[in-house]
């Protein structure tokens, strides 16, 4: 903030459009972050609609529905690179979409800087935990951990 607030009568007509002008009110540091986060919410939302509806249909509507879900069911799905990729994409997009949504809500409702930074710290930590742990589980998972597995990939 400049100490002098006197009007500069000699600024001339180009004073505002000049990049360094003190009359220019566009901030320089943040770039287009909020614009891209707005674009991301819409693009990831459309992709998630397909990914999540597909996930729910295959897991809850087909076969025995919710009661069919056990270790063997997960092993069957994640022995296929198709479902590993599907679930990884869904995990990342959903977590980043949720991260961005909760970030907006924190910005809307917190009044003290301290509260805002504590909540955002928890948000970043939880998002990192979910994405790192989830990705590791999808790709280091061993479907043959179950000795009674009947999956063909586990046949010796």
């Amino acid at each position, binding site marked *: 903030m400049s100490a002098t607030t006197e009007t500069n009568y000699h600024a001339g007509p180009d004073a505002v459009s000049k990049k360094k002008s003190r009359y220019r009110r566009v901030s320089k540091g943040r770039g287009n972050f909020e614009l891209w986060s707005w674009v991301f919410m819409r693009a990831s939302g*459309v992709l998630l609609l397909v990914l999540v509806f597909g996930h729910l249909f295959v897991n809850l509507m087909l076969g025995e529905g919710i009661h069919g879900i056990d*270790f063997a069911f*997960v092993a069957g799905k994640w022995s296929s690179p198709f479902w590993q990729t599907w679930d990884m994409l869904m995990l990342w997009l959903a977590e980043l979409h949720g991260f961005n*949504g909760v970030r907006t809500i924190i910005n809307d409702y917190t009044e003290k800087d301290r509260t805002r930074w504590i909540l955002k710290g928890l948000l970043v930590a939880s998002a990192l935990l979910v994405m790192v*742990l989830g990705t590791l*589980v999808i790709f280091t*998972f061993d479907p043959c*951990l179950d000795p009674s597995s009947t999956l063909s990939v586990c046949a010796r």
Partner: protein
Amino acid sequence: MAQAANGTLYRGREGMWSWVAHRISGVLLFLFLFAHVLDTALVRVSPDAYNEVMEAYKNPIVGLGEAGLVAAVIFHALNGLRIIAVDFWAKGPKYQRQLFWAVVIGFVVLFAPFAIRHLTIVFTR
């Protein structure tokens, strides 16, 4: 421009309530995703650990919670499409109220068959 017959009020009407429901369903889904990734991570511990937790979920109370979760997913997804229409379609803002009722109809069409199928499984095992 909004006509007097349609009302010019945004607050307290379809526009505001769909915004409120979008926030609440979004936060709910975010919290669920956290729990869902942690419990699914048990497949990395042992088949028994995972199966034990999945068995504990197979009761009517959690079953009703799962129906509520799917309801939140369907509403959030359809209202998200409405938001995209309001943002990118020239006539979107004009028809945002009609779009809200389209979301409600789409919700019933998608949720009813799921609820019948899912709750039948949950309550008749």
